[in-house]
């Protein structure tokens, strides 16, 4: 039984419907909202499995269903669905992990008054994420990309009454949006150059050779191939979304959201969307590989960014005290791994790691959630401790997750996926940096995860909250167990001996044999040694002599306070951004506002003043030059009038007499003058 591509839209539509249901339900509609969300997710999981089933029938095929969104009278804007193994695997992962996290949330969010809204948002996220996965159009992908951003924003800010949560939500949205601007520009450029945004469209899609050839043939400024430029711009989006350096700053802050959210969005799925994007666009990104004369290949940048991020995240994670932040930086680091893998050309390894990481990181986050839930929302590992006995189930699953993440050999999925990446990095000829960064990150990951486990679960409780912690309910434990199982088992889908997953993803035939199991054994040994060293060091510093009280100094900090302080401050990235980008924006705002207020406003006022001045000049002219004469005459007249007024006695006789006398005088003058 399979799901045809025409009906692929059902996968995102089901959670969307659940979200709509949740949106219109009143606050009291907890049960219907949650059941709708879980039912939709379960149905979507089933459909995803069916789709996977269909996709695996012919892994090399990109089944598409395209349709016009709207028509401009001049060509329509097309959208479409795409079904290939990448989509299908991702869908299965998202729906499965999502389903488990939904179930976990039932317990975790039980006491929250906005329970219904939570499931509404989660469903919305799931819908957007699944839409992103099934999109056969970069535009649709972008739309869903933004919608997952919205969902992320809403969920990070779920406890919006907490200023930190509100700020973190805003930061997340804006930071990712910064990357999205690059995405948008790249999208526009691609649209403009290719005339379409469909990935696969019977030869006209942007990921198909015909169009790619055209894109690589053009060069833009700096000698870059057009495809490189577009690819890098699109990669900006991935950088933002996947928390890659330098836009990784939002991800740790995003931990302000509820822990299931962190697990689903900021560990398992959404942050992996960047990786998925690059994987999806891999033909485009890799199109310039054949070109020798270009200054830089797109994938090189991807690999370097990934390497830097992997290392950076691991380093910073060492000094974090918040259980979720440690995991968040670990996520950053692991996403860097994936990018690194993509960059070095092992996109199947990247997806392999993406899938395994999704499970074990979700496990870890849910475990952390369980801890937090049990410890009355105490997240500081310095104030936890001794939970091993109080939370046995959580402890066991958490340790499995930790081992998978740390890459404990052979049994845990993280080992295999990580090994695949390191193997690919080793084979990369452009630069050794990814390999070294990867290896360093391996050791650091093992170290900080050991630290985390030791601080949280060993020793004795260092706060009342930790002392009174109780094991979470079954609804939370079962997902943990299931995820733990997956965290172990999933690794065997992609061992070098039987790289079924990679083959299915690449659509290539499966060449499995046990000889391949220890291919590049030296590197594997080195990596195993590094893991062991990391765990050992971690145990030495934190496990052997557990911290006595919350206030006790960190052993590493005691050894190197400056370094640890810098790391704890995340190497000052936020401060740096605040001082540069933030300041720049404030400056731009001030300039714009000032321009408006003082320059343009002044210009307008100036025109007004000019008018007034003209009026004044005209008036002064009137008063001074014209009226002056009149005024003087008027003053004279007034004076004359005043003196004349003295003659105005009001006596009629006087007037009459004056008249007569004047007449006589006039007559005499006339007579004397001889006027006839």
């Amino acid at each position, binding site marked *: 039984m399979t799901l045809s591509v025409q009906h692929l839209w059902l996968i995102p539509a089901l959670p969307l419907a659940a979200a709509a249901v949740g949106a219109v339900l009143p606050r009291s509609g907890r049960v219907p909202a949650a059941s709708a969300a879980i039912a939709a997710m379960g149905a979507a999981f089933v459909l995803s499995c069916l789709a996977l089933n269909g996709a695996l029938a012919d892994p090399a095929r990109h089944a598409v269903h395209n349709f016009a969104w*709207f*028509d401009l009278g*001049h060509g329509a804007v097309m959208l479409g669905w795409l079904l290939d193994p990448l989509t299908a695997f991702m869908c299965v992962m998202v729906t499965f992990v999502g389903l488990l996290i939904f179930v976990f949330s039932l317990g975790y969010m039980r006491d929250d008054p906005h329970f219904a809204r939570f499931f509404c948002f989660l469903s919305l996220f799931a819908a957007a994420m699944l839409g992103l996965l099934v999109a056969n159009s970069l535009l649709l992908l972008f739309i869903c990309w933004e919608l997952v951003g919205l969902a992320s924003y809403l969920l990070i800010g779920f406890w919006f009454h907490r200023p930190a949560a509100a700020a973190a939500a805003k930061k997340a949205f804006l930071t990712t949006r910064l990357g999205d601007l690059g995405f948008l520009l790249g999208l526009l450029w691609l649209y403009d150059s290719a005339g379409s945004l469909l990935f696969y469209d019977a030869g006209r899609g942007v990921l198909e050779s015909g169009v790619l050839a055209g894109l690589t043939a053009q060069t833009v400024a700096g000698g870059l191939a057009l495809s490189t430029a577009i690819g890098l711009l699109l990669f900006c989006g991935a950088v933002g979304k996947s928390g890659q350096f330098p836009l990784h700053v939002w991800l740790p802050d995003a931990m302000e959201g509820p822990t299931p959210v962190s697990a689903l969005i900021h560990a398992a799925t959404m942050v992996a969307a960047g990786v998925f994007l690059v994987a999806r666009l891999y033909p485009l990104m890799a199109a310039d590989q054949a070109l020798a004369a270009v200054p830089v290949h797109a994938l090189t940048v991807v690999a370097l960014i990934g390497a830097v991020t992997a290392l950076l995240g691991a380093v910073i994670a060492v000094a974090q005290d918040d259980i979720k932040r440690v995991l968040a930086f670990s996520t950053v680091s692991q996403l860097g791994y994936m990018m690194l893998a993509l960059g070095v050309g092992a996109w199947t390894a990247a997806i392999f790691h993406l899938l395994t990481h999704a499970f074990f990181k979700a496990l870890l986050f849910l475990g952390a959630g369980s801890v937090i839930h049990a410890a009355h929302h105490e997240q500081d590992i310095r104030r936890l401790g001794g939970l091993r006995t109080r939370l046995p189930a959580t402890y066991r699953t958490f340790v499995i997750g930790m081992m998978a993440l740390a890459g404990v050999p052979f049994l845990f999925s993280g080992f295999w996926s990580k090994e695949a990446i390191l193997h690919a990095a080793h084979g990369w000829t452009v630069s050794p940096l990814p390999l070294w960064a990867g290896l360093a990150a391996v050791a650091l990951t093992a170290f900080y995860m050991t630290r985390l486990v030791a601080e949280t679960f060993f020793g004795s409780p260092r706060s009342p909250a930790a002392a009174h912690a109780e094991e979470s309910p079954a609804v939370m434990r079962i997902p943990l167990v299931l995820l733990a199982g997956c965290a172990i088992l999933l690794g065997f889908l992609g061992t070098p001996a039987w790289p079924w997953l990679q083959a299915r993803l690449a659509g290539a035939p499966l060449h499995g044999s046990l000889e391949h199991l220890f291919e590049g054994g030296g590197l594997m040994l080195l990596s195993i040694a590094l893991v062991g060293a990391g765990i050992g060091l971690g145990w030495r510093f934190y496990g052997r002599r557990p911290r006595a009280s919350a206030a006790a100094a960190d052993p590493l900090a005691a050894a190197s306070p400056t370094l640890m302080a810098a790391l704890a401050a995340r190497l000052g990235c936020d401060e740096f951004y605040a001082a540069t980008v933030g300041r720049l924006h404030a400056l731009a705002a001030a300039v*714009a506002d000032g321009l408006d207020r003082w320059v343009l406003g002044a210009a*307008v006022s100036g025109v007004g003043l000019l008018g007034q001045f003209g009026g004044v000049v005209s008036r002064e002219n009137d008063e001074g030059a014209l009226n002056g004469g009149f005024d003087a005459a008027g003053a004279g007249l007034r004076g004359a009038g005043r003196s004349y007024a003295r003659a105005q006695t009001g006596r009629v006789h006087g007037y009459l007499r004056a008249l007569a006398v004047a007449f006589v005088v006039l007559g005499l003058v006339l007579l004397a003058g001889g006027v006839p």
Partner: protein
Amino acid sequence: MSVLLSLLVFLPWLGALALALAPRLGVSASRRLALAFSLSTLGLGLLACARFDPAAGGYQLVERHAWISALQVSYHLGLDGMSLLLVLLTGLVSPACLLASWRIERDVRLFGLLFLLLQGSALGVFLALDFFHWFIFWEISLVPAFFLIKLWGGPGAPRAAYQFFVYTLGGSAFMLLGFAAIHAATGTMDFVALAGLGGSGALARQLGEPAATLVFLGVLLGLAVKAPLFPFHTWLPATYAEAPTGASMFLTGVMSKMGVYGFLRILWPLFPGHVQAHALPLLWLALGGVVLGAFAALRQTDLKRLVAYSSVNHVSYCLLALFAFAAAVPGRAYDSAQHAAAFGGALLQMFNHGLSAAALFAGVGILEARAGGRRGLGDFGGVRTAAPVFAGLCGVAMFSSLGLPGLNGFVGEFLIFRGVFGLAPWAAAVACLGLFATALFLLTFWQRVFHGPVAGAAAGFRDVSAVEIATLAPLAALMIVLGVWPQLLLGLINPLLLEWFRQFAFAS
């Protein structure tokens, strides 16, 4: 010959007359009467929509009667896709404005009267096809707007109203002069006839240089002030901020469209050559509006001013598309998908901005009313806790304004960017800055007002009343519908775009 368009224009005026003739009408009855007449535009607009044949192109439902034969002025009304779009927008926004003004208690009858006058004159502007009465409508619209601002506005309203009035009137004066020159040269003021002349270049020839350029600049100035085009927007923040909510909504939702409409209906068809020749500086100005408008908004602490600047920013997108169209690299065919996207996006953006800005102003108005006149960014906090439904409706408007995909704002902006990128890539790149700043200030607004602990005026904040839901919900619903199904509007304007390309073919 149908009288539908005349009815459209004059029914609101009839309503105003009815209100004027009923001095004893009570407050509630006045409101209802005004709303009923205001809704007539929506009803008639939908009727016109039904009678409108999108495929036919050209002006439809034309009414033409000889009027002043000495000046060869005729009463000429007509409807094309753009007019229809704006008529529908007016029909949607106007009742919302009246609903948002429901809480006004003082001189309700006069308010309704003035508002209906304003609405009618705006409709007249959108439907008139002869400059003579087009300009009459254009100028008349100032008068009720002036009084609405002055009488019901905030403490700075008189000054703002005067500034608004004088500024726009000053701009229009140049336009009037320009049209006087055009009339002197051609003997007609009919848009259709003039567009024919303009399209063939005969208009510029008949005017001669430099008269043609001067006329072009005069008309441009008149439209630029109204739209507003950066840097002629300085009247706008103060005016929008001081105006009563309903008036702000109408000003930004409909009246700012009058300017853009003028660009498309007058400036482009009449002076294609000049628009092209001056496209680059104009493009820069539009960019200035996009970027500086957004950044200036970032700096505002008065919510209304903030929304006002966002309006500058958004209207500038429309202008950006128009000028990018003109500034396109020569030699490119004038009917490419990019051109279609730019124009289609501009038209869509007009509509979308009308909805979202009106809704934002309505939201701010509700905030202001609840807070007893305070509307500072710092006067609120945690409103979402107190009023989740209100927050949700405002959130839709905000994210629409922000250009979130799935809401209507995105479609217009995407098309504009699509077109602009194809025609002037660097402009699109610069405009992205504005896009980011828009997100920045809107989210800041959202965070400061709606998130965080309940603080300031949010304490005791009532959630939306039924009237307020009636104001906001239709707008929000439309935002979602149009975000998912833009074809609803694009279907009306597509033939128009093709027709314009034919008209502007001369310019290439």
